[in-house]
């Protein structure tokens, strides 16, 4: 196994999947000549040709809209949105067509496309390079959503998304693109969607997170002396591994959900609702959320105050233990 960063693992996945299936193609802004602004697609244009690693016009709705047509012609397009917040124009196509087209054909045509994008803050970037927009996507029927937190999962989940017969959106934690390294299996490697990952076993409290909040939860677990903390990495928001969530809640009886996105109607609210509906008798205290605030993602000089911190997570855990 090779030790790779998240962005290297994504690139490795592309090399494997484009080689494996000639119908897979990559498209997006600057993905070809530049190899992507984060170099996730570096080398693909040289290896597989400009048609299979295609530099598109600067048009996010156009990228996703043409991807719908490419599916109808038998392709499996993987669309890169250059940044989280740059993806908003593509929501028109996502909501009006991508999530509906198969349904509209009575299940006769498949739309095996992937949207992937770097997401999240903490990178000292200008406005609209820092958002966590997963809720907009996960709320859309007909679309699956996954968010890996480790290099191995970044490869395996992207491979699962590419092979999935339904449209899948993959958010990649850009904060950890290069800083987080880990063992990544070589060659074909698939992490099935719909399976959470138990990042750490514990007895007293469960921290539930995905993507860039998983390392925050792990650091909080380290910081909590004398508390046995379980960390559940959801990694697939839809389909959701409800069993893993309920099993962990039953085991510890205490759940804190950590989410970088703003609080109102965020994915943490969905998880909390599931726990309220199905785990109420297992819980020894309220389900708590540590989230971003309901504000526009801030100027980077004060962005650290917006991001859920280790301190906020440990404070929530202490509050829950004292309940």
């Amino acid at each position, binding site marked *: 196994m090779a030790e790779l960063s998240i962005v290297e693992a994504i690139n490795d996945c592309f090399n494997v999947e484009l080689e494996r299936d000639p119908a897979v193609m990559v498209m997006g802004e600057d993905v070809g000549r530049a190899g992507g602004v984060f170099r996730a697609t570096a080398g693909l244009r040289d290896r597989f040709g400009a048609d299979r690693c295609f530099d598109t016009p600067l048009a996010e709705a*156009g990228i996703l809209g043409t991807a719908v*047509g490419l599916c109808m012609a038998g392709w499996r397009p993987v669309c890169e949105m250059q940044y989280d917040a740059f993806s908003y124009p593509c929501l028109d196509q996502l909501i009006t067509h991508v999530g509906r087209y198969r349904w509209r054909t009575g299940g*006769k045509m498949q739309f095996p496309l992937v949207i992937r994008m770097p997401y999240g803050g903490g990178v000292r970037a200008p406005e609209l390079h820092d958002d966590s927009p997963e809720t907009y996507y996960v709320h859309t029927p007909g679309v699956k959503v996954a968010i890996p937190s480790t290099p191995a999962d970044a490869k395996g989940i992207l491979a699962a998304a590419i092979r999935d017969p339904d449209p899948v959106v993959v958010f990649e934690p850009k904060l950890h693109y290069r800083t987080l390294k880990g063992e990544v299996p070589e060659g074909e490697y698939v992490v099935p969607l719909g399976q959470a990952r138990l990042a750490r076993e514990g007895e007293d409290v469960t921290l539930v997170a995905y993507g860039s909040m998983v390392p925050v939860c792990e650091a909080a677990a380290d910081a909590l002396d004398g508390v046995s903390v379980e960390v559940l990495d959801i990694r697939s928001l839809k389909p959701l591994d409800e069993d893993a969530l309920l099993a962990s809640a039953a085991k510890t009886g205490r759940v804190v959900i950590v989410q970088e996105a703003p609080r109102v109607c965020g994915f943490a609210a969905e998880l909390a609702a599931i726990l309220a509906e199905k785990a109420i008798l297992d819980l020894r205290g309220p389900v708590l959320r540590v989230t971003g605030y309901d504000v526009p993602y801030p100027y980077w000089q004060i962005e650290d105050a917006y991001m859920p911190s280790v301190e906020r997570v440990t404070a929530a855990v202490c509050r829950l233990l004292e309940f």
Partner: protein
Amino acid sequence: MAQVLPAERDLRRVIGDADGAGDREVERLGEQELLELYRSMVMLRTYDERSVVYHSQGRIGTYAIFWNHEAMQAGAFHALKDEDWIFPSYRESAIGLLRGMPASTVLSWWRGHPAGWWNPEDFRVASICVPIGTHVPHAAGLAWGKKLKGESACAIVFFGDGATSEGAFHEGANFAAVTGAPLVLFCNNNGWAISTPVEAQTRAETLADKAVGYGMPGLRVDGTDVLACYEATREAVARARRGEGPTFIEAVSYRTAPHATADDPRAYIDLDRVEQEKKRECVGRFAGYLRRAGILHDDLASSIAAEAAEAMREGIKAAEAEPPADIELLFAHAYVDPPSSFASDLEELRRTRG
């Protein structure tokens, strides 16, 4: 790349005045093809007129009328090969009939019944696009994808004058141009987007002028002249098949019917102009051309009309005979591999409905 010039201002016409002045012929279009074109127009006209009646009888829901748009639809259609894909807006809801789709399918769509869902691959007709212009990128993507696979099929996408204000139109047209996609962008400029006149959509002198900005040719035709629509589309398709990329066609008419059955245009439209336009409506104009050429006569016209009427009688009968949709369909088809919650949702729904 050949230089792309602004579109000609004058509308291309093939069919002349009622007295035959100005009639010309389309090359390589024989008597048989002319009659096929006429049959298609009559089929579409009959579909449309019957649908308005069915709506008033409560047998179909809200319906987008396309009366006097038959020339654009049939003209463009007959310039295509069977392998070519059609991306309709709701205004072209019945264009699949020309590819052999049963009338009951389209009627079921307007009845809100799942029997109105079809497999686009069966007819090379994409699903009806309800939002405005968002199917233009789909058509560009399909055409580009066919080209990438080395296949010869091209695509045509229909949209209205209002759609040219949409971002999706722009992005789709630009994508098609950049990728050299074999696509015909067919703009049905009937002058109105519900109540908004085309003058309020754009300051461009003509919609075809937009083509030059994408580096593609723009053609302007009389949208009520089926042969002009046919000829222009045939040129665009030939260009696409030669690998020269997309073409924009602006087919100009004046909307003579309400936007849809729920619309009352008396509040905004020029009713005198509507009456004038109705006198030169496209099916009658083409019938006149064919009669002047000695191709169409009363008996043939009646039998073509009877054929279309019979297809509609069969169509509504079959659509109304569809059994009610099972509620299980609520959960079907959105995913190949649906979330596990669907099973318990369906179980709960069945239980609570009793």
